[in-house]
């Protein structure tokens, strides 16, 4: 069974810079399990906007070979577009802008997962996000399409906490103060 690992913006924000124990923990997790994180194009765009003194290290992860940008999403495919529509409806926009004007990363997660399942290039998709609503939406939509067993919503914070617990890092992973 082949699995793909679709990453949302929050994963590459949460791991910090390459010297950070969180970055190292996730990189080793990827190496140990033969994982390459796939980023929808919109996710890559969000991460590379010039808006932070410490830009997320996505290009470093790509150079190191444990992250890559996903193939463009073919939303003319009915399964792909139906998965994306499902997520779009599950998480409504708070403002009045037409939905198609907004490049949404939560729908792109569903699009990349659906495309891989549909073309048979993967039989399982793990979706890594910090947005609880996006994770629940993806699970609910694939469940409705009959793909409940083929999708897992991975909570990025739980993932990192568990990995750091195993390394015995003396600091609480997200305690805030002093970390």
């Amino acid at each position, binding site marked *: *069974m*082949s*699995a793909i*690992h679709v990453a949302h*913006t*929050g994963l590459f*924000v*949460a791991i910090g810079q390459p010297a950070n124990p969180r970055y190292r923990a996730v990189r080793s*997790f990827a190496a140990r*399990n*033969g*994982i390459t994180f796939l980023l929808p194009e919109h996710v890559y765009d*969000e*991460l590379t*906007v010039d*808006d*932070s*003194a410490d830009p*997320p290290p996505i290009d470093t992860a790509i150079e190191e070979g444990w992250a890559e940008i996903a193939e463009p999403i073919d939303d003319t495919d009915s399964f792909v577009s139906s998965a994306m529509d499902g997520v779009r409806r599950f*998480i409504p*926009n*708070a*403002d009045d*802008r037409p939905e198609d004007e*907004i490049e*949404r*990363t*939560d729908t792109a997660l569903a699009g990349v997962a659906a495309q891989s399942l549909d073309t048979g290039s993967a039989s*399982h998709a*793990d979706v890594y*996000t*910090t*947005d*609880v*609503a*996006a*994770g*629940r939406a993806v699970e609910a939509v694939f469940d409705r399409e009959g793909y409940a067993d083929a999708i*897992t*919503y*991975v*909570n990025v*914070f*739980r*993932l990192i*906490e*568990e*990995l750091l617990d195993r390394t015995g890092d003396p600091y609480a992973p*997200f*305690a*805030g*103060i*002093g*970390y």
Partner: protein
Amino acid sequence: MSQTTNRDDGAIVGDLLSIAALLEKPQLAQLYAFLTREGESTVGELMDALDLPQGTAYTYVNRLVDAGLAEPTREEQPRTYVAREIDLTVTAAEGTRDYTITPMLVDAVGRRTTDDDIDTYIDRHGIAGLATALTYATARERGEVTHRTMADDLDISPLAAELILQALRPVVHEHLEIEVSGASASAVEDATNDA
């Protein structure tokens, strides 16, 4: 209006001013948040936990006591102090919106001394902006909004929204009981190993 009511009004304005002072001074906010979280503490415990010199710790504790935000619980040495609960709801003039100032907001402000993302966000958007961000951070942990919703509503970049939402997440979980959903590393590895 009765005499008592007038005194009550004065007390409310006094609370407002005390809380404003707390939000202006992150070290005071941090100390207040510590007392709220840990309960009864001595000045020595505050010095150790927050890495404050003795003189500074006494000054801050006295300021909290003077502002009515903390009180000594016993007179014998070493004295212990507890936080007085903050629960002040501010209603906008037209009465359509109100906001309750909570220890969670004070805690978030106090963390700017140790968290660069919170500090930068306050520099850009003020304490008021941080209060708004905290509302989004709570809603995101409850699965009601995403970082994208916040970015669109506030006209900031999705990356800026994600950074502050992550910085505020520990504050939200410290103060509110919200169930954490989603799988962790073991679930991914179990599936990989079964393959």
